[in-house]
């Protein structure tokens, strides 16, 4: 007697999201860095770690964001159905551009430390925005625009993904220079490393948003220049407020700068997330397609 098995009718499952998520790994990566920095701040405050210059620990901390990025983003990218190509290339290209172009121009031509710290609040905003702000953002923009854009851009979030790689490379170069040339104490290096990573990723995401929208949506003829100006002004605003946040009478409180950069980054990334989500929803409605989330 033959056995017959009944085949269960196949269920129509949820179609998987074919791309690697962007916001969640980014949040985790930023959280890992924040945890490491808080650990250093507490241990140095409690006297467990000596708050002196330590090249090895500071270098490790400066490279931690790249390690976290590799673990949570690059590695996961390979598991996605439609992986993004060239993220590592963008990261290294941005590092080369930062070290070869941005740093020499900042330190030899703009020299902001000579004229901006003593300037008034609005002068500081414009001064930083029109020098190191616009230069930094243009380099991140150019690295993505002239390599991956538009062929690798399929959804708006691709802009955030690629700009994060560019911003991370840029900020890591600044952090390594900070470790090797400025010889800061451990706690001070930790705060500065976090500040560089957070602010460059947050403002780089603005560039990423403008590139993503330009690739997918309907934009005006001045869309990209507008994005660059907005990013540069945001950068200037951060530098100007940072001067206020870390000054406390005759002394300084680095923790003020830490709260400021975390607040600005959270606000910028939160707003961008909302805008992209809304734009995606509107486009899905317009095209009459179902969104996979």
């Amino acid at each position, binding site marked *: 007697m033959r056995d017959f098995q009944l085949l269960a009718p196949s269920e129509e499952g949820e179609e998987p999201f074919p791309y690697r998520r962007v916001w969640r790994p980014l949040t985790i990566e930023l959280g890992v860095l924040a945890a490491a920095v808080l650990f250093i701040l507490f241990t140095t405050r409690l006297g467990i770690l000596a708050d002196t210059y330590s090249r090895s620990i500071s270098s490790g901390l400066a490279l931690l964001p790249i390690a976290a990025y590799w673990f949570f983003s690059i590695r996961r990218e390979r598991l996605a159905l439609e992986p993004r190509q060239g993220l590592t290339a963008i990261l290294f290209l941005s590092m080369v551009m930062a070290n070869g172009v941005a740093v020499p121009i900042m330190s030899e031509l703009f020299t902001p*430390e000579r004229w901006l710290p003593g300037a008034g609040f609005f002068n500081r905003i414009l001064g930083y925005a029109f020098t190191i702000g616009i230069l930094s953002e243009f380099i991140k923009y150019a690295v993505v625009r002239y390599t991956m854009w*538009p062929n690798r851009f399929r959804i708006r979030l691709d802009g955030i993904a690629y700009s994060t790689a560019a911003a991370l490379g840029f900020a890591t170069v600044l952090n390594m220079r900070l470790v090797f040339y400025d010889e800061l104490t451990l706690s001070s290096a930790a705060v500065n490393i976090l500040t560089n990573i957070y602010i460059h990723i947050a403002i780089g995401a603005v560039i990423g948003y403008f590139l993503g929208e330009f690739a997918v949506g309907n*934009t005006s003829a001045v869309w990209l*220049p507008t994005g660059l*100006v907005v990013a540069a002004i945001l950068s200037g605003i951060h530098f100007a407020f940072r001067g206020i946040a870390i000054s406390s009478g005759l002394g300084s409180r680095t923790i003020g700068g830490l709260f400021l950069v975390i607040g600005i980054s959270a606000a910028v990334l939160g707003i961008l997330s909302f805008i992209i989500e809304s734009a995606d929803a509107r486009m899905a409605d317009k095209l009459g397609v179902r969104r996979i989330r």
Partner: protein
Amino acid sequence: MSYFENPKDFSEPQVARRININSGLAIMVTLALMGLGMIFRSSILNATVPYEDEENGIRGQIPLNWLLDESQQDYVFRAENPNARPFKTLIQVSLLTVGPDANPRSVVDLLVVQGPNRLPGYHVQSVSETSLGEDDAVEIQYSFVQSDPNPFLQSVPVVVQGVDLVVLRGNQAVILTYRDAAENFDDNRPYFDRFLQTVEY
């Protein structure tokens, strides 16, 4: 059409044109803003405020936002850049009463002799004849070592480079001084040169 396919066709002439305009404008805006930034930088770095001391008859333009000190007896005024590191860039004017036979060179010789007592590690690098406006002047360049007087601050001594420019005014020698950390001396020298262009004594 699938949602995941980018609906935009980049080969469309209208889209391609818009991309070219955007890309070109992005470069132009960046260059324009950086140009504005450099103009802005120059205007802040070169901004000055008038200084006038009627009692001692000294007048000139000193850099904006520098700290002015007139409280000491051994100089007319001292202006320092509070943001400069590792040494606060300094412009100073002092007066020295001299005899009727004095000349700028003899005043410089006196400064050279007194230098090691006033400044640790004092070392004369050059003495040269020059002029300030229509007056003869002698310029002495020197270096010394500046240590922080606070023993609780762990700081490395700074090598400072200085210039004293000496001109005579009746029975007084006017000594115009510029000092800065050796690494920043040449970069910040234009502050002193601009002051010399405007000083009246």
